[in-house]
């Protein structure tokens, strides 16, 4: 395991160094072809390193344009110019803007020079620093401070890489990929977040490693997500260190196959400063790890020390504050596996509910591990080594290690669904043209049959016309221009239209 970790770290350093090196060479605004690793390539390398194979990082480098943003310039303007495959390289300086990436395969790469970072400053006014919806987005080397909402938030982007960012006091969440598949969140430092510093929300196949989270309400939260590994992180001085939840009322209803291993989860005794009514406002301060309703969670080889309420709480929905019911979500944590961990000095000042359990169990010792509510088929190794409450029915785990699962990152990047409808022209015709044109019937515009007669064999003529239509006929309203469609799209739809037969 340690060797593999070194491998990941070495590649990470190589990547970071490459970015820095590129920046040193590169000034000015002209796009220049420079090798920069894409999100996809970085993911592939991370996966290869995690599985013990020798990831060839040279293959991971691709040619793309680099758009350099200097202090005083707009990052968003550069993102606007960038095309899929390009890199936006942000030089040290202070940037006061909200950026958003609604295209695929863009790398947003900060350059750190002599300890000076490119800093996005929300000044307590702006909502988010980086929003992305595209696939294959990589965000790296940014310092983000003073936003109200998130530092970095993804909405449905797959194959994301968020690494080596330094995030402080950015409101509700620090790093929040949502509804994405196949992502890497590593080597980030986050503090001062009023909910989860790193929040994996409704995602699949995510690797969270080598991050430091301190002084937040929740350090790392895995919510309504599957196939997530949280390893080699430091979570300290949060109200709750690491959480794996099913939150009810969300459109994705499950959390399972989560591995929490090799983390330092130490002294998470911060006051809970979450907003009233938020789910994490119910996190009892002084808690190392909470498993709520999540299934098939492995907790292994962590140092869980000095968390005054409890080291590890396993709870169902009914046992947790602020939870509204969801008949479509299973409220019980099943098949939780507590493997060997280093528990010490937890439960020295437990909450009232745990004190009541201690009373019932006739013990004065606060727990390292406490389970409340329902759930079945959970297990533990070496129960005698730690203080526990409520896990009497836990049997001995059959497995002693999760080493067989090196990573849940995908072997191949999550790809767009293979189209059942492969014809771009047909899609455009049905999606746009059919609102005004039918084959042999007058709607808003003339029947397709008449257009076919006029433009027989001349698809390009139609493609040109629809880009900037002139009013042709007194008996029809003018057609709205379709110039926003690319030339390829216009030609494809024109070709399709000429072949429509009913």
């Amino acid at each position, binding site marked *: 395991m340690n060797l593999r970790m070194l491998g990941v770290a070495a590649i990470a350093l190589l990547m970071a160094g490459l970015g820095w090196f590129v920046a040193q060479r590169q000034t000015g605004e002209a796009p220049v072809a420079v090798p920069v690793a894409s999100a996809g390539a970085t993911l592939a390398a991370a996966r290869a390193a995690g599985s013990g194979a020798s990831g060839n990082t040279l293959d991971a480098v691709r040619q793309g344009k680099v758009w350099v943003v200097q202090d005083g310039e707009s990052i968003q303007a550069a993102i606007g110019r960038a095309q899929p495959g390009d890199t936006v390289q942000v030089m040290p300086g202070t940037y006061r803007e909200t950026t*958003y990436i609604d295209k695929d395969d863009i790398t947003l790469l900060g350059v750190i020079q002599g300890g000076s970072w490119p800093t996005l400053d929300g000044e307590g006014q702006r909502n988010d620093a980086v929003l992305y919806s595209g696939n294959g987005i990589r965000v790296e080397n940014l310092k983000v401070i003073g936003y109200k909402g998130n530092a970095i938030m993804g909405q*449905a982007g797959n194959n994301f890489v968020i690494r080596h960012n330094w995030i402080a006091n950015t409101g509700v969440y620090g790093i929040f990929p949502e509804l994405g598949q196949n992502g890497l969140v590593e080597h980030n430092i986050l503090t001062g977040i009023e909910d989860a510093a790193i929040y994996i929300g409704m995602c699949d196949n995510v690797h969270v490693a080598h991050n430091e989270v301190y002084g937040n309400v929740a350090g790392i939260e895995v919510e309504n997500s599957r196939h997530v590994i949280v390893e080699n992180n430091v979570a300290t001085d949060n109200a709750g260190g690491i959480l794996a939840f099913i939150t009810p009322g969300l*459109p994705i209803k499950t959390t399972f196959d989560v591995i929490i291993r090799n983390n330092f989860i130490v002294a998470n005794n911060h006051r809970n400063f979450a907003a009233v009514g938020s789910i994490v406002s119910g996190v009892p301060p002084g808690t190392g790890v909470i498993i709520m309703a999540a299934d098939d969670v492995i907790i292994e080889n962590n140092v869980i020390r000095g968390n005054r309420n409890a080291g590890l709480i396993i709870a169902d929905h009914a046992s947790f504050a602020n939870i509204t019911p969801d008949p479509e979500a299973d409220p019980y944590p099943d098949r939780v596996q507590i493997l060997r961990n280093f528990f010490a000095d937890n439960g020295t000042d437990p909450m009232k509910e745990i004190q009541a359990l201690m009373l019932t169990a006739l013990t004065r010792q606060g727990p390292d591990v406490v389970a409340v509510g329902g759930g079945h088929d959970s297990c533990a190794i070496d129960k005698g080594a730690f203080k526990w409450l409520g896990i009497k029915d836990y049997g001995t785990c059959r497995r002693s290690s999760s080493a067989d699962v090196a990573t849940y990152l995908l072997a191949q990047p999550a790809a767009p669904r293979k189209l059942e409808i492969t014809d771009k022209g047909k899609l455009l015709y049905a999606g746009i043209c059919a609102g005004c044109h*039918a084959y042999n019937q007058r709607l808003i515009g003339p029947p397709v049959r008449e257009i076919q007669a006029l433009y027989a064999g001349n698809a390009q003529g139609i493609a040109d016309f629809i880009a900037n239509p002139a009013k042709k006929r007194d008996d029809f309203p003018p057609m709205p221009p379709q110039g926003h469609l690319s030339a390829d799209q216009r030609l494809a739809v024109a070709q399709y239209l000429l072949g429509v037969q009913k």
Partner: protein
Amino acid sequence: MGMPTGRAVRRNAAGPRARSGTGGGRLVAAACCGAATALNVCAVLLAMAFGAAAQGAAPPQPAPFELATQCAAGFVLREGVCRLHSAYQQYTSLQGAGVGGLKAGLPALRDGYTPQQIDLGRYLFFDPVLSRNGRIACASCHDPGHGFSDARPRSVGVAGGETARHAPGLWNVGFLHRLFRDGRARTLEEQVQGPLYGAREMGNTPEGLVQRLSAIPAYRRLFGASFADARDGIRSEHVYRALAAFESSLIALNSRYDLYAQGVADALSPAELEGLNVFRSFVARCTECHTPPLFTNQQLAVIGTPEPPGHPFDAGAQAAGSDARLRGGFKVPGLRNVALTAPYEHSGGFTRLRDAVAFYNLGRGHAVPPGERLSIHWQISEPHLSEREIDRLVDFLGALTDESFKPQRPAAVPSGLPPG
């Protein structure tokens, strides 16, 4: 080109700025035939049956009703049934849930109906014969001119009294797996029975419905042409299915927002883009529940909007059988064409869209009546948005408007009653 063909269909002069969304053959009103006489007789009989004169009962030009043979706009005929074709079908969504960001796949649509079933549903939707006294059609409260919603805060039923809630818009309703504002129905077929038989809505009975429709020769023919097993007689299930077919054809996925989502960078104005970024930020948090591409995550949520003055508290999902912690909970509505569906919220408490948006900025639970203890949804926070940001949100919501596939209101319906 330029010469109208002999088969060109007469434009419906009475209709709105009409787009015959459901393809060809819908308004084939060109020629009269023998059925016209029967139709007029039928209309008179119906008017007598309802004990009320259907004003100007005879349509201007009685027509033999024929059903479309082509699918609604946006659909393509495959193996005899209509299948949606949308650019969103080229994307996936996490766990197939149909929620996500800009390029996320749709939830499953209730498609697979025949063109005839969809078109029969259109006639039924606009035909007041479905109500107890022949005065109200589905379209009376789900008006295509108002985003298939109602300009009244609360709709008015057959007896002239108000219903309890504001009529929800119907665009994209075929994607939903929870129906009614309190989410109590799971299918469109189950849902339509609520208004059809509700005493405060259309006030009909299954027997009354079937009896009236069966008395109309044109309907007997059209049902027979739409459902093989209706040739032996119309059943209420046929009515539900035809209405479900029509409602499932109401697709709005072609707004300027959609163009932006598909990669047309300048499809949104700078103000709308700014609004999009407020909408999806974790400060306003709109997108957490109003999740693209349908702008709903289809969950129940307790947000605590106020009732209009003088109206009792509406327990919503709790009254529909959910847990007490969902007291005052309602289904998250989709926001497509929301600019057209004023007034807003479950009981029409907000006249303007901006008021509905500003509600979320006025403090968590600020409108909860004294004595009520509601479990307000965790995403309802204190976002402290600026007035400018609220304006931009309204701008963005306007970019979700798309009526390009709006179906045409029929000039006449088989009952001979004035179309709703």
